[in-house]
């Protein structure tokens, strides 16, 4: 088991290198001058060249990449062109807010998803199944940014129950556990939870249906095992996969929060990315993408190792 975990970590290293290359290349894909956002439009040619040399943009790509990687490994993602503050600080603060949102959304999505999935799998081909399945199709089909707008229209604009945007009163960007902040979290978290809800419900339904149709369950029932006992078996069989899907979904939400954060003006990594793109703040763009991708890779690794540890059916060495 430890050997397997180690092996997985070793195999992840080239992926991480690849991810770094892609992040680096992305910025160089960007058309136009990399300094377009810092230089005045009437800058002289010599000033331009000076700045290019200062940022190292005049060096060959592999050298720029090596320098960049060397700094990244030391935790230096550069300086935001827009704010002049270190990218690491900007990103870490924003990611905290996004993590809050994504984690709550994943938990809500997981609870509703497993509920619907179990009901659908247990009462296969009844109206309960059809209703639960319809909800999960809704979850995977609805454009969540639009759903967010609809919820804002209903609960903020029309009913006035909840605030429409922001993470706290008065544009607060620091999360606190108090009633006002929680009120701000409700709409974006519920909106976001729809994505994992649909996927987890589908997964759980399939797992439950498969487990129930297996011969050992038929045998256990024939031996007079109570329905609760059968239920325990089903949970035991479905749990590892369902938890793994939940973990991967958390990663997707962390990386894919940009749409929802834009709708709700939630001060997270998505909104930061949005700002970086539209203000052509390339170091910030590069840093945010890199950190989010690293999160996703590490999370996937953790999920894979944990699933292997939890699920007795997977034998890996």
């Amino acid at each position, binding site marked *: 088991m430890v050997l397997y975990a180690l092996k997985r970590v070793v195999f992840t290293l080239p992926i991480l290198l690849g991810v770094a290359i892609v992040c680096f290349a992305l910025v160089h894909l*960007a*058309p136009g001058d990399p300094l377009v956002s810092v230089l005045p439009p009437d800058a002289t040619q010599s000033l331009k060249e000076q700045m290019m040399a200062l940022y190292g943009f005049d060096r060959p790509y592999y050298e720029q990449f090596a320098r960049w990687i060397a700094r990244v490994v030391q935790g230096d993602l550069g300086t935001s062109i827009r704010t002049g503050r270190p990218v690491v600080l900007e990103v870490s603060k924003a990611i905290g807010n996004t993590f809050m949102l994504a984690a709550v959304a994943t938990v809500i999505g997981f609870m509703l998803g497993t509920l619907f999935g179990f009901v659908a799998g247990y009462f296969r081909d009844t109206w309960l199944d059809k209703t639960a399945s319809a909800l999960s199709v809704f979850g995977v089909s609805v454009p*969540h940014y639009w759903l967010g707008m609809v919820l804002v229209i209903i609960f903020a*604009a*029309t009913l006035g129950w909840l605030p429409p945007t922001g993470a706290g009163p008065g544009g607060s960007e620091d999360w606190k556990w108090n009633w006002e902040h929680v009120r701000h979290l409700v709409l974006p978290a519920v909106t976001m939870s729809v994505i994992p809800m649909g996927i987890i419900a589908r997964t759980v339904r399939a797992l439950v249906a498969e487990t129930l149709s297996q011969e050992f369950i038929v045998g256990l029932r024939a031996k007079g095992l109570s329905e609760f006992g059968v239920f325990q078996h089903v949970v035991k069989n479905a749990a590892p996969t369902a938890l793994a899907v939940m973990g991967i979904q958390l990663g*997707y939400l962390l990386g894919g929060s940009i*749409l929802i954060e834009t709708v709700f003006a939630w001060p997270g990594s998505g909104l930061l990315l949005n700002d970086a*793109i539209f203000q052509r703040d390339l170091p910030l763009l590069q840093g945010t*993408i890199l950190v989010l991708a690293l999160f996703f890779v590490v999370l*996937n690794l953790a999920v894979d190792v944990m699933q292997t540890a939890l699920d007795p059916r997977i034998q890996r060495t």
Partner: protein
Amino acid sequence: MFLATSTKLLEPILHSPGYWRTVWTRFRRDPVAIGAGVVVLALILMAIFAPLIAPQDPYQGMSLRRLRPPGTPGYLLGTDELGRDMLTRLIYGARISLFMGVTPVFVALFLGTTIGVVAGYLGGWTNTILMRTVDVFFAFPSVLLAVAMAGALGAGIGNGLIALTLVFIPPIARVAESVTTGVRTRDFVEAARASGAGAFLIIRKHVLGNVMGPIFVYAMSLIAVSMILASGLSFLGLGVKPPEPDWGLMLNTLRTAMYTQPLLCALPGVMIFITSISFNLLTDGLRSAMDVKS
């Protein structure tokens, strides 16, 4: 030649229904899937015949009639922030939105299948190099990759298409690789090799026929995701540029009217939702129809 070839043997032969015929028969009995298929067909027809159906010009606005609610006489679904007929723009929107949603999946289907089938059939180092490269792109959450690519390349239909295609190649390549690896070791492929056929011919005649089904269904299931993602890019301002009628972009530009005309600004989202759910239900029906146990 140790066999006498008789021309008489070329007479018509009784033919069994093929695999796809059987799938169609099963699919036909699924009312939900048929319903979803009809909606998808209607959307496609709407896109093709937009100029014939739409009551007004999609670009021509009337500044005096801005943001009218649905039900306004002469403007069945109201008017947008520039006074353009909403119904017309929703109808025309099907053109770009469907194009932006469907094209990347089909391009990725072609490229991803090529990568996956070649990697799966040849195995060895070819497989390692191709699939590890795919893994790198798979290491990005799809929304992040699409946004990052589109953000770096800049807004526009072409860049949006490139970004979305890149998002869908890795998952399709993975599915293609895994089903091809499964088929490669089957005896009928060995038998084909034993008859002296080369890799290209075997892939074309024996591998593709057995792997295209699952890969295609998987790609179909991505169309719904692609629709949401493509509209999402436009919603962020990273996809289609104004004044083109696109559902995602309309959602973006109408956001300012969220409090004054809530029903109006929710309409483009309804279109995205209908399209996405129809593709999802169609795919579900197709998948269960193809699950033929013989």
